[in-house]
């Protein structure tokens, strides 16, 4: 088995769209059971990791999806796409943009807000140490009567 074949087989095995255990071509027969279990464990760990990461960059839509018990399935749907970038911000924009056309108006609205926030964040990157960055933090400070610029 070539390196490329091994890598494609492993990528398929740990992707949420591969439910057959993802046997890797060329794996030794006595390793197959352990391999099957390992891919299931890592596949689940990736979904949990992705939920955590997307919740950080898309807090509103992931929060609403969680209330609706849709978060895991939507994250799995995003993981199934074959164009996943390493940057969680870029991936968050993809995730939120996809959900901006969701038939549920609340999900659609939340996804548009999260996507717009991420896109707006591009304008003040790299992080300015004097800028709060987080719009929620800025809003909370203003609501409490504090000027975020004087922090």
């Amino acid at each position, binding site marked *: *088995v*070539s*390196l*490329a074949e*091994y*890598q*494609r087989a*492993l*990528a398929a*095995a*740990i992707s949420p769209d591969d439910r057959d255990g993802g046997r*890797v071509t*060329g*794996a*030794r027969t006595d*390793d*197959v059971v*352990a*391999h099957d*279990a*390992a*891919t*299931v*464990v*890592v596949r*689940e*760990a*990736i979904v949990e*990791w*992705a939920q955590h990461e997307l919740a950080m960059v898309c807090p509103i839509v992931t929060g609403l999806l969680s209330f609706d018990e849709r978060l895991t399935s939507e994250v799995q749907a995003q*993981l199934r796409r*074959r*164009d*996943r*970038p*390493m*940057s969680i*911000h*870029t*991936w968050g924009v993809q995730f939120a943009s996809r959900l901006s056309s969701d038939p549920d108006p609340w999900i659609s609205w939340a996804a548009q807000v999260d996507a717009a926030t991420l896109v707006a*964040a591009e304008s003040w*990157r*790299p*992080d*300015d*140490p004097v800028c709060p960055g987080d719009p929620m933090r800025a809003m909370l400070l203003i609501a409490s009567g504090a000027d975020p610029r004087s922090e």
Partner: protein
Amino acid sequence: VSAVSPSLGVSFDGRSTTVLERLGSFVDVVEIAPDRFVTTYADAVDDRRFAAIDEHASHLDVAYHGVGLSMGTASGWNDAYLELLEGLCAQRPPRRHSEHLGFTFVDGHFLGTMAAVPATLAVADLMAERVEAIHQRFGLDFLVEHVASPFARPDDMSVASFLTYVAWNSGCGLVLDLHNVECDEDNGRLRVDEFLDELDLTLVKEIHVSGGLWRDGYHLDVHARLPAPSTLALLDATLPRCPNVDLVVLEIVGAAVDAIESEELVSTAQDLRRRIEVCGVAG
């Protein structure tokens, strides 16, 4: 051989400054994962990136430890990582840099995890060739690290032989991550004692320690905990056998640091310092 103990380092992923605030005065080196230090690879690298380090740990050396080069991907590595690394090195020259003998991308798709490359002669030759290219491009001390990975691989040599072969044929050094090899042993991939007996330990320049998680019978290398007693005992036993180690790094993700009591974190760093002063002599 000079009687100088290895330095002590701590990882910093750029997400939480807690680790710098708590340990900045207890360590010598901050290990930065370039991929996590920026939002995207296209981000500009300037002094503001280092604001947190300058505020809490300006006296520390830096070392770059990549996770996103994907140097084991058959179709080619992630060159955007190297461009980012060039920017960081220009902005803040490191003590050294290092990467993993693994892959995070397949056909342009980020896996969401890092997997080890198969330990075969063909892959070893490919890795040695790529390490040499990195040497030529950066001209810096460069180390490679074995990846803990529970998946079966079509290996035709041992992991220790593979690492030794790559280092000998490329001129790089090795990072020995003790938690990685513990995970591999717990997941049935190798035996730690056999691995250490077979590995050319003179190639090891850095040792990493961390703690992971158990999930459904598998030991996962996720740097979410402080090192377990077994890892610390392995450090005590291994460090005296590695004459060229000059840095021991405590690796822990920022999100996990925030959940650890400050006293526990500091006492762990102090304990590591004591252990490396007793066991380690940097040549």
